[in-house]
């Protein structure tokens, strides 16, 4: 479903600040797989999602999604195939629009409405029906501006929006990192439920090793722009966070310095 091959990304090329974020990255995510990505800060996790979504153009290499070579597609065109939830709750929703309008916007991703009214009875009903899943009472606040919602509510709405319409690929970049533990847990369980229900091909970046092993079907670890570890099936099922840490040490011959990873 997603096929990233031989992708290299350099930021600030030919300047003193030049840094290589991805080094000849190859990553294939088969149809329906739920992949979790882990790695220290600056390892290239977000950059790899940005390459898939079109925010970052690689120096070389190819990105194929759903059988189509999207390497040269702009973001808005890729959004017909790919949807995503950002880390910052403010990014996934538009605070000046109402909850309903945000929903309609997400709906337009795969079914643009052009000169027809953005909102009709069908969209209103669908939005209310989806929002009921959250059990937050948001289905009764359809005409409230999204800016009035809390971070957790907004992130839950972002997730619903990203899974509206016909896109089959979902990218999640530490989408629970900005939330308090209880809300984070709620949004994670919601993610699992929706991904399973819709059989989405998903890639989730997370800061927590426990989360990476607990959710999804496969886990990869990034380090300095490369994938240094890739596990699925029985091998993964038998893994503990401590095993991951040991692996990291062995492969890199260095201590893992990122405290946040250890605590996760």
């Amino acid at each position, binding site marked *: 479903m997603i096929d990233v091959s031989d992708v290299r990304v350099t930021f600030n090329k030919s300047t003193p600040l030049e840094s290589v974020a991805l080094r000849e990255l190859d990553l294939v995510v088969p149809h329906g797989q739920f992949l979790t990505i882990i790695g220290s800060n600056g390892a290239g996790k977000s950059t790899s999602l940005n390459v898939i*979504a079109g925010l970052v153009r690689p120096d070389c290499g190819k990105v194929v999604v759903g059988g189509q070579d999207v390497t040269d597609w*702009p*973001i*808005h*065109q890729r*959004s*017909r195939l790919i*949807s*995503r939830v*950002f880390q910052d709750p403010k*990014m*996934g*929703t*538009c*605070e*000046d*629009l109402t909850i309903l*309008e945000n929903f*309609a*916007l*997400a709906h*337009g*991703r*795969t079914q*643009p*409405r*052009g*000169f*027809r*009214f*953005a*909102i009709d009875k069908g969209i209103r009903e669908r939005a209310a029906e989806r929002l009921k899943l959250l059990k937050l009472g948001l289905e009764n606040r359809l005409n409230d501006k999204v800016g009035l919602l809390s971070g957790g509510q907004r992130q839950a709405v972002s997730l619903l*929006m990203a899974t509206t319409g016909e896109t089959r690929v979902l990218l999640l970049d530490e989408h629970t990192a900005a939330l308090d533990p209880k809300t984070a847990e709620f949004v994670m369980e919601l993610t699992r439920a929706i991904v399973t229900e819709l059989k989405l091909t998903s890639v989730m970046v997370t800061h927590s090793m426990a989360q990476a092993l607990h959710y999804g079907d496969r886990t990869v670890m990034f380090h300095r722009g490369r994938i240094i570890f890739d596990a699925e099936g029985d091998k993964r099922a038998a893994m503990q966070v401590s095993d991951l840490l040991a692996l990291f040490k062995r492969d890199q011959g260095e201590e893992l310095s990122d405290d946040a990873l250890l605590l996760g």
Partner: protein
Amino acid sequence: MSLYELLGTVEVGLIFGLVALGAFITFRILDFPDLTVEGSFPLGAAMAAILIVNFGWNPWPATLAAAMAGFGAGFVTAFLNVRFNILHILSGILVSISLYSINLRIMSGPNKPLLGAHTIFSAVQGWGIPTYILSPLLLAIIILAIKMLLDLFLHTGLGMNMRAAGANPAMAAANGVNVGRMKLLGLGMANALTALAGAMFAQSFGAADAYMGIGVIIIGLASVIVGMSILPVRTIAQATLACLFGAMLYRFAVAFSLNADFLGLKASDVQLVTALLVVVTLVGQSSRSGMGKLLKRKLS
């Protein structure tokens, strides 16, 4: 103020309502401070005047053509910004100074009188009621119709995409909105409205002038800021109404301050007074509420 003067002020206030709607689209919806209007207002005036006087066009298609020329001007500004990444303010300045030369070319000189020519206001002549009463009425109908069309547009799928593109470009793009295209369309629309205002102003005033664009940007902005800080703006329809109201209020404020002898103001002081008005309103808002800060950020 006589009735005649009063209705004259209403007429100009209505016409500048279109400028305010344009500023609403660029500053408030697209978050794109657009200076093109300084050139597209006289462009509309020049186009209408030349088509009516030199080419003998019927004033209605001439006025429509003027609006389309304005659309082109806004489109070019957005194109410079979207395609070549030129800073939005600079793009607008480049186009508006180019338009200054172009307008002189169009009119073959610095101005073009319309006295005695057929204008859109000729339509209300010979009804037995003085034209200074019927002209503002005609304008009010046209401007309210345009306001409602804009309200409707902003509620379509495309219009909502435009609002999202201005409010949160990254999120809009992630939801399939071609943000660059929305800027092209929005700036085109805003400058079409401004050029339309220029065309109507020239026909009302009796001449087109290459210098008549000076200060249009700040008048539009003042109207939006003042209108939206006085009236409630919870819905799109309320917001556009507030813009029209702001433009009218601004005209009356100008008329009164010029009429009030004790203030000792001259007609040439208008720009200064306008700038002060904008500053005072913005400062007042930012110290009053978070909403004011939001508006200020969006508008400055």
